[in-house]
């Protein structure tokens, strides 16, 4: 009797095993308790001024989720992306967060890039107790202005990026800097952070040249650049960037100072475009090197292939379609942090949201890996901000060639907030 029972049981087990083997890959990992997918609300800039970034954030997100699901999902559950357009609009952003929490039953919100949308949406995420993982680069998370439910674990912030540039600039390019920047918050961040950082390196900013955001011709500003300038630091953005470079080239001719810029100006623009020849030999910050480098890691290689990006940082289906390579890795890495956090917290559903946040807050070292193809990172659980290597590239033959990798220490600054002291 016992025997037969156990035989029956054994047969059952075998049958179950055979059944499982014939199931598709994902179903084998299905958790017995729940097979509902993990829903990640993707707040994406489909329309409005962020649309060009939104397209690549979308493509990277799609690739990361495909990889995660092929690997068995999160805690054995598949990941489902619920993408909602926020119109790059803060008010709309808050509504989208609300939809994630109340309408779509999302476990977390994710993916916002533009600062004003983050700042407009984050309070609502806090009220609704929805973990909100932003990929924004802004300093607003670490500055303490947001809340315990908002985290930025997949991309470094502008303050650490800018300050990490100063040692290399002072040592290799020059100590007398003139800054040209657009006269609004984005430019002011650069002005404030870099001025302090270069002074800490024994350098100085000779002149701050603030350009009105609607300006489309720049020649009248160039005579303000002091003659003794050794390095010109530029962070122009907007449609007039190409004009800015062209006019700068006409102004200086062959005898220019060293030039250092942020790739934000030319993100998704082909550096070898006509009119940009003047940039040859100049330097750029890159969040992630657009061109595959000589020492390319296997992880970057894997990540590029998964997103469908070639060695020049362009789409494999159209070599003129240059990606937002310096930023979009943030979506990939953030999704992997969400996965790691949910697995560490044993996340089962919205009731475990606080546990998820605590699990992410407990993270610190994130080694370079398939989950972190941009490089190793250190997460600061108190400030909810990740810190990582920054890259400086030089334009050589129309390509961005990496010449320097900062240490993570170069990017650190004293904590400005401790979110862990806030209650859930």
């Amino acid at each position: 009797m016992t025997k037969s029972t156990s035989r029956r049981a054994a047969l059952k087990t075998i049958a179950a095993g055979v059944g499982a083997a014939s199931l598709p890959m994902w179903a084998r990992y299905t958790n017995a308790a729940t097979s509902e997918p993990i829903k990640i609300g993707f707040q994406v800039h489909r329309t409005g001024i962020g649309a060009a970034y939104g397209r690549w954030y979308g493509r990277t997100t799609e690739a990361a989720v495909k990889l995660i699901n092929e690997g068995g999902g999160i805690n054995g559950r598949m990941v489902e992306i619920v993408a909602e357009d926020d119109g790059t609009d803060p008010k709309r952003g808050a509504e989208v967060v609300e939809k994630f929490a109340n309408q779509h039953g999302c476990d977390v919100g994710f993916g916002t890039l533009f600062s004003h949308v983050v700042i407009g949406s984050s309070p609502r995420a806090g009220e609704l107790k929805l973990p909100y993982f932003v990929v924004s680069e802004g300093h607003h998370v670490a500055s303490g202005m947001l809340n315990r439910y908002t985290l930025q674990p997949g991309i470094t912030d502008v303050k650490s990026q800018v300050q990490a540039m100063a040692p290399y600039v002072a040592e290799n390019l020059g100590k007398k800097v003139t800054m040209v920047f657009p006269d609004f918050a984005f430019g002011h961040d650069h002005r404030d952070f870099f001025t302090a950082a270069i002074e800490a390196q024994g350098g100085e900013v000779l002149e701050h040249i603030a350009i009105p955001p609607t300006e489309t011709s720049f020649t009248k500003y160039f005579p303000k650049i002091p003659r003794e300038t050794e390095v010109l630091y530029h962070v122009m953005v907007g449609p007039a960037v190409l004009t800015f470079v062209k006019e700068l080239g006409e102004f200086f001719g062959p005898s220019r100072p060293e030039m250092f810029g942020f790739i934000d100006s030319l993100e998704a623009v082909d550096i070898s475009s006509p009119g940009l020849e003047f940039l040859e030999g100049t330097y750029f910050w890159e969040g992630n090197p657009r061109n595959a480098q000589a020492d390319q890691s296997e992880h970057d290689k894997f990540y590029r292939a998964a997103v469908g990006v070639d060695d020049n940082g362009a789409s494999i289906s159209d070599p003129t379609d240059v990606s937002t390579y310096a930023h979009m890795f943030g979506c990939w890495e953030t999704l992997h942090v969400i996965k790691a956090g949910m697995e560490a917290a044993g996340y089962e559903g919205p009731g475990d949201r606080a546990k998820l946040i605590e699990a992410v807050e407990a993270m610190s070292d994130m080694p370079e890996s398939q989950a972190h193809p941009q490089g190793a990172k250190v997460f600061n659980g108190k400030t909810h901000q990740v810190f990582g290597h920054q890259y400086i590239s030089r334009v050589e033959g129309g390509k961005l060639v990496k010449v320097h990798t900062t240490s993570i220490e170069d990017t650190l600054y004293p904590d400005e907030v401790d979110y862990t002291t806030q209650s859930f």
Partner: protein
Amino acid sequence: MRRILLIVILLLPGMALAHASEQGFVLLLPTDVYITAGVASVALTVILLAMMPARLAQGVFHPVSLWRRAPMPLHHVTSTLAAVLLAGLIWLGLSGPRDPLANLLPLVVWTVWWIALVVLQGVIGNHWRWTNPWTGPAALLTRLTGLRALFRYPRRLGFLPGIVIFLAFAVLLLADPAPADPARLALFAGGYWYATMFGILLFGPRWLLRGEALTILMRSYARVSLLGRRGRQFAIGLPGWKIMARPHVPMGLAVFILILLGTGSFDGLNETFWWFSVLGINPLEFPGRSAVITQTILGLLAANAALITAYGVSIWLGLRIARADLDLGPAFRLFAPSILPIALGYHLAHYLTSLMVDSQYALKAATDPLARGDDLLGLGQFYVTTGFFNTQATVRAIWLTQAGAVVIGHVIAILLAHALALHAFGSTRRATLSQAPLALFMVAYTFFGLWLLASPRGL
């Protein structure tokens, strides 16, 4: 509270990553040379017309008959199919993917219909007879229930309902914070379809001709298309030949046509740095549509009022100069349709770039309508590209195509207005004099249209 929050947001440091590519290349193009050339060709048309014999100027609008029209009785069937398709799309809008670039409802409404089908209607011919989603279901309803219209459409209303509904549509298009949100659009589209059916139930098919703004728009654009009916024949002719065949339009329709152009023009203007500076907003950190709803609506109304006034004044001046014995009202109704080629040119120019990008998304959504990873059309791994905004050669080609649409629209409009003037006044001299202010207006409008294309934009 919301206002305070908005102000706080605007004051806070942040980043803006407005994109350089396409517009960056446009700013590098010698657009001032192109604009001069475009304006000059329109001006030259005016001068040539002044010297051209009347018979020749009118002759260009003579159509060529193609073949005898075969009866095409299937329009009720195709219209019913269009309604079924719309119902399917609305269902997708409510329950399909939430991403407006992955959901077929917004892609079909704003890309396939509002861009492609409107342009086809204006360039080729009246497909709306077969593609509208109302006439078929209305016919079916009448056949099944035997119901006739409950009321006579009040004549004194004229085109007023159509004008009001079109302005409401323009507000949705330009000022609403999320016109492409699938669920929101599903409610708008479904609600509007239903309301229109109700209108037909009340007033019969006349509602479509007087109150249903989209049908009025489509029928207006059909007037400038190449193909059309001429008696029992199918015919083809220079855009405008159908207007020459039946010149006068009712006053309400004349105003409607001007509003088409005014709205189209404002749709370009409201993206320029100039408009942002009027609003006192930094275009590089545009706070989003929801922050400028009132301004956009006021701008839309002001732009239309300004255009109608400027147009009316031009016609009035022309009548004075030519000492014509035509009153302002009839003249306004006579010349207004000549605006249609301009409005159509603007439509194509303004939306060309969106069409190039969003039609790819439409294809992608068509192959995978439920975003489940299907590939119904067998496209394989399909990536949407915007690479054509990244090279100088392609950006130049796109810009010149847009500018070409604007210039050709104006040239045809001037030809048409001149031919209409000859028809009304007889002699070339009087026609030319009467057209002088209007011609000046159109030359200025060409400049405005090309300036819009060349201006830096914040969206």
